[in-house]
């Protein structure tokens, strides 16, 4: 194990009776890394965070902090701090006393404390609010104070539990940048829990995608987005078309699958070696990789009928039916061709480089809100 490792989880498991919240989590998080735990609610991400914080004890496995096993060490003796979703500022203390609290607990001198408080308040841009009580601050301001309080005694890692969840959309975007800047400035390891895939993609160095207590994939945002390990990851991050198909052949350059009457070549597949022709599979392609009546050349071209057009500002989402299956395509407003109307015929184009094949068994794991489900 390298010295650079800030936090390591080894086979960490958490169960309450028969209910397993987290199963066999293994990961090494580097010093200074921005690491996100991403997944839908109930996936075990917050439980994992709370185990690292010491607020829950793992049922099995061990947690190492800077190489030291802290699995049984109580929260108040761990050198990590949590930023809670609803901030958890002490309501009876001023901003200054809130930030002073961890320093006081560590027995840091008054003079040193004052310097550190001033520095951290400058860092979060809240110098003028020292004397305020938490209830006199806005949501975004409380967020910054919670952050300052957790950073002031320079912990080994900061654990953030959906810290921007309570903020409105625009403010969330701004706070994302603030957080990322602060993290870069102080160089402290951040472990960030979120269910918002955009947040995870834009801020993280690496992401662990979780569902039902299981880690589906750990990788950089690019790896997660362009090379999802499972159909669930593919569905949870970004917009993906999942088409029912049948494996034609798995030999040679890439594999071929049949969707309706068309044989499509796929650059990537997660099928094992045991996959044999005739097997049912999921043929996947990102919505932004589907060309609609494009002049650009593509390897595969399929005829479809436009069923729905949704204008979304920067782009249009076009839903077409193709051989009885729905294919969604995202067309940039810049490239928009107004001849596309509902019920008109459309030419759908794909490239095999953009096609991934998953086992059909993974279909039940897909997170997708179809019109029937809503």
């Amino acid at each position, binding site marked *: 194990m390298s010295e650079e490792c800030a936090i390591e989880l080894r086979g960490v498991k958490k169960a309450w009776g028969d209910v397993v919240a987290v199963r066999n989590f293994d990961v090494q998080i580097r010093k200074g890394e921005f690491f996100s735990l991403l997944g839908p609610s109930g996936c075990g991400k917050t439980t994992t965070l709370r185990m690292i914080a010491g*607020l829950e004890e793992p049922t099995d496995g061990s947690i190492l902090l800077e190489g030291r096993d802290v699995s049984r060490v*109580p929260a*108040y003796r761990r050198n990590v701090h949590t930023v809670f979703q609803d901030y958890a500022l*002490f309501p*009876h203390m001023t901003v200054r006393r809130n930030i002073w*609290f961890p320093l006081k*607990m560590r027995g840091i001198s008054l003079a040193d404390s004052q310097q550190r408080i001033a520095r951290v308040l400058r860092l979060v841009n809240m110098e003028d609010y020292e004397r305020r009580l938490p209830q006199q601050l806005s949501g975004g301001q409380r967020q910054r104070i919670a952050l300052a309080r957790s950073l002031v005694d320079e912990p080994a890692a900061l654990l953030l539990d959906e810290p921007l969840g309570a903020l409105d959309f625009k403010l969330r975007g701004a706070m994302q940048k603030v957080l990322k800047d602060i993290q870069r400035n102080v160089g402290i390891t951040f472990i960030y829990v979120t269910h918002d895939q955009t947040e995870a993609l834009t801020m993280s160095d690496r992401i662990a995608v979780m569902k039902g207590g299981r880690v589906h994939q750990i990788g950089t945002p690019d790896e997660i987005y362009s090379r999802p390990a499972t159909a669930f990851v593919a569905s949870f991050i970004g917009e993906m078309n999942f088409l029912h198909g049948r494996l034609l052949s798995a030999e040679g350059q890439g594999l071929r699958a049949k969707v309706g009457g068309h044989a499509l070549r796929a650059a990537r597949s997660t099928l094992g070696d045991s996959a044999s022709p005739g097997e049912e599979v999921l043929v996947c392609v990102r919505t932004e990789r589907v060309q609609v009546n494009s002049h650009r050349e593509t390897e595969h071209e399929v005829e479809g009928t436009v069923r729905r057009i949704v204008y979304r500002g920067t782009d249009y989402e076009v839903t077409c039916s193709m051989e009885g299956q729905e294919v969604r395509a995202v067309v940039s407003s810049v490239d928009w061709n107004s001849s596309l109307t509902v019920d008109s015929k459309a030419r759908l184009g794909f490239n095999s480089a953009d096609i991934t094949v998953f086992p059909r068994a993974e279909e039940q794991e897909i997170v997708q809100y179809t019109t029937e489900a809503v």
Partner: protein
Amino acid sequence: MGERRSPSRALLRGIPITVWMLVLVVVPLGYTFLTSFFQVEGLQIAAKLTLKNYALFLTDPMYSGILLKSLVLALAIAMLGILAGYPLAYMLCFRVRRGKQALFMLSIIPLWVSYLVRIIAWRTILGNKGVINSALTALGLIQEPLSFLLYNRFAIAVTLTYICIPFVFIPVYTALEKIPRNILEASSDLGAGELRTFLNVVLPLSLPGLITGFIFAFIIALGDYIIPQQLGGTQGIMFGNLIWSQFGFAFNWPFGAALSFILLAISVTILSLTSRFGTTEGGFISE
């Protein structure tokens, strides 16, 4: 509805509470206050204004002596009530996982039992042939029954503390329940163990409940005259007994009214001083 409420509507809304306060508080208290300046002629109360009731209180040191004793005892009982009721509320709030509801009901169930029954119960516990003395005698630890248990101020303190515990427990428990759990987690997360979390976070945030409990216990202990009468013996006369005897035996209602007002004035002063500490502002860390 318009932006502003019309003044007549606001006035109408105020009528019930005003009537309530007038009928149940202002008129009786005003009448008592007035009575305290009357005098007794024979067995009749004469509506002739005089200050001699207050003068009697000030000149005879027995009265102020008993008042002081009662105040000290009531303060002690309120403190003991908190020492017993606060830990109970704390344990029930933070330590108990299962059966919380049942334990809460058990803690306040004494309130459902008649006041007199509870007093008699304590007499059977503390008496010469009571539970404690019989047990100690049976164990051979004592030959003679312990006499300091009953008919003195010790018995009053024990019984009144017991009576006060639910009145401390309920407001403290409510205050503790209102503290968000993640604030306690934050405290632990930021390096405070249980004791320091208690001193810096739990105690200041539960202070309003603590003050309310203290006030309840203090008022109950200060005004009570039945427990001193039943368990206090000869040295157990409290200010409440004094007032009661003026109304019940001596038929000196004006003097009884004057004593009531002196007690009221003193308790209001003490309570207004105490309740100033009841704000949630503050915190333990000094600048």
